[in-house]
């Protein structure tokens, strides 16, 4: 077993928290810190990239390297960081609007690239920070100020999308199950490749439909073991289709395939950032132009 060399105190941040009391984000933050501690990761070994929204404030509330960028643009920034310094443990984090609406295209391509990082989506099925508009994961008929007569498009199923994109690690967590979520985050970080967790997160202010109780009544764990084979894509599709009375949480789909960062000859040795610039090495570069 790995020795615990860090404690939760190492991850405490003094930045005052700007979430509503009772927000599901608190539990996600707790699970995240706990996962880092249990993995023995030191704060400076981690870089979290976040977008804009309530969820993306998370990295300010723990001690680690953080890049709080633009709404929807977490994954490309995280990709750049990982490729420049693959020694860092890189995570991207944002809301459902950030990841599935504004950043949807990047999500597809990050899965395809299979770069080694973890992507956490705090899915509260609503736009929180901007005070309650409809999100791509809002249920059909969901009423907000931008859809006063109810949302007319069915909700996006991020897990199905991920499995269809051959994402190498697809999971769902629930903010109300902190221990389960901690274990998922640890597995995701340890996974070699792009690991995606959609985290059901009650929004106490703007989502009065999908409340803490609504989720708690429905979620059940799928255990990756004799009963459920997460490496089977068809099984995973079937499981991911389930939504309504019963909602599966856990690792839904997992498969090993080459990572982007693992295939690049430039970083088979040292990380890019530790390679010094050597002007001498360019001395013959002009020859083919003569």
């Amino acid at each position, binding site marked *: 077993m790995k020795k615990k060399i860090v404690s939760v105190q190492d991850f405490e941040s003094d*930045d005052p928290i*700007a979430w509503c009391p009772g927000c599901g984000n608190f539990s996600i933050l707790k699970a995240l810190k706990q996962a880092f501690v249990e993995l023995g990761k*030191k*704060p*400076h*070994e981690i*870089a979290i*990239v976040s977008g*804009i929204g309530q969820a993306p*404030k998370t*990295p*300010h509330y723990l*001690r*680690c*390297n*953080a*890049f*709080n*960028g*633009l709404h929807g*643009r977490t*994954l*490309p*920034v*995280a*990709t*750049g*960081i*990982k*490729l*420049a*310094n693959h*020694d*860092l443990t890189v995570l991207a984090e944002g809301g459902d609007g950030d990841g599935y609406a504004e950043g949807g*295209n*990047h999500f*597809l*391509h990050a899965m395809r*690239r299979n770069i080694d990082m973890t992507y956490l989506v705090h899915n509260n099925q609503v736009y929180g920070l901007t005070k309650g508009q409809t999100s791509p994961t809002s249920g059909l008929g969901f009423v907000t100020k931008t859809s006063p007569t109810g949302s007319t498009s069915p909700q996006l199923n991020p897990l199905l999308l991920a499995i269809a994109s051959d994402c190498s690690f697809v999971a769902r967590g629930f903010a109300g199950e902190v221990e389960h979520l901690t274990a998922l985050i640890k597995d995701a970080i340890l996974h070699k490749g792009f690991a995606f967790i959609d985290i059901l997160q009650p929004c106490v202010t703007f989502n009065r439909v999908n409340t803490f109780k609504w989720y708690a009544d429905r979620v059940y764990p799928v255990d990756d073991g004799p009963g459920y084979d997460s490496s089977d894509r068809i099984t995973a599709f079937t499981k991911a289709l389930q939504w309504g009375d019963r909602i599966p949480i856990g690792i839904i789909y997992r498969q090993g395939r080459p990572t*982007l960062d693992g295939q*690049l*000859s*430039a*970083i088979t040795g040292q990380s*890019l*950032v*530790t*390679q*010094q*610039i050597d*002007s001498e*090495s*360019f*001395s013959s*570069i*002009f020859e083919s*132009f*003569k």
Partner: protein
Amino acid sequence: MAVDVSIRISGQAGQGIQSISAIMGKIFTRHGYYVFINQDAESRIRGGHNFDQIRVKDQPVYAIGDKVDYLICLDGNAVDSDLPDLDENGIMIYDGEKSNFQSGNSHHFSIPLEQFAEQAGKSKIMVNSVATGAAFALMGFELQPLLDRLKEEFAAKGGEVVENNQNSASSGYRYVKNNFKGISANQIPTGPFKKQKLLLNGSQAMALGAICSGLKFYSGYPMSPATPIMELIASVTDQYNIILEQAEDEIAAINMVIGAAFAGVRAMTATSGGGFSLMVEGLGLAGMTETPAVVVVAQRPGPATGLPTRTEQGDLQFVIHASHGEFPRAVLAPGHAEQAFYLMAKAFNLAESYQTPVIVLGDQHLNDSYYTVDHLALDQIPIDRGSIRFDDQISSVKDYKRYAGQETGISPRILPGLSEAVLYADSDEHTEAGHITESADIRIRMVNKRMRKLEGIRRQMASPKISPSKKSDIVLLGWGSIYGAIKETVQLLNHEGIDAQMIHFSEIFPFSAVPFLTNLKKKTKIFAVENNFTGQFADIFTQQTGISIFHKILKYDGRPFAPQEIVKQVKEQI
């Protein structure tokens, strides 16, 4: 004898016009000449009407000529469309068997290009090599250097391709030697043969400048005329340990660049105006998070898709103002390939020294045109990584504030993961520690901090190039790729006894101090020459100097200026 010869190779897309113009251009360069090659191409893969024009001179040359001395027609249509541009003593090579054109002019040489291509080269697509061989014979060049060049060019495609091209070129060469004995019009004297000077286009120069500056990360999305930059870098990633990732769109490209630069490597992207429109929010992110990012914008006529393969200088005001909010940036616009190489190096140094985005503005005319360059010197591109610390002590640094450094605006930099410190970068307004803030006081301090860097950058901007330096009655004012055209315009005017000088800007924003103003006489007439409709640089010049510009020579048909065109317009207005 002064040499100034223009050779036009005309035909359809897909006939290999560009490959033979580059082959010929290099041979002339090896013979000691200076070459300028411009491309006039349609946005299509096959067919249509395209040409490349090679200007060969015994002096450095940076602009197109107004007359064609050699016209090489690879198809029948080229005869009709291009013959009017041929000088009255000019030489034409065409395939009389494939065109209805009949000529009694002894300078029009009908050569069975297609028949030779099929016989000697085993394929119709070899007409370009047959024609090149024929042209070299007419110009009075030896065959061997051409055969050697073809071997170099096609070696990667295998021995058979090399042989077919060589046989084609030889058949064209021999046909001329055997059939047109005693013709010696427009011959180009051949000097000693050396591999010394370089032949490169603006894109290649930019890519080389970036690589030699220690580029480690490139991300981009293909868009003409910027794509060749990406392709050249992609061809050497393994050699120089560079990572190149083709992004899903330009938004991703610039955000990846920002991620890589935040993590501490030199990173860039390149695009054209349309792609840059998508990058604009990311540009502001680089400004706010104080992340060095180098962005090449190779302009083409817009808006929207515009004329994808043609040229314009229509995005200057756009790149200077792009993004909401205020933050420092630099805009550099090289005048020719050699300058493009050095300005890329400067772009990286400025970006890292001032921790902010730097834009290098090219255009199709600069990026696709080939220039002979005497020499590129690695020791003239010092690498200045600004305030980044790599020393041994950093590993023990624990407390670090990413946005400290109010006095100069420049924060000390420690890279994530290389010390025990952690750092926060934020696109929200932030404290020195990088956390989100709503404080009015901190907001003011942070805006001041960032904008202070603009003054630092301003001090780094080079003065415009003024030539000749003595006060003149007429000033031709230009920027970026217009360099060659106005430089030669001035020479032509001076030659006619008209007192004129060039003032050319290649480091444009922030607008630097104006020592050259003392150079202007009261009665000096300033002519702003630009490839756009509004005279974008002229407006900046007036705004910054208070000097009004009453004469503008503007061109926005997607084509570059020939110096003679400018001469004519100047004369009309004086």
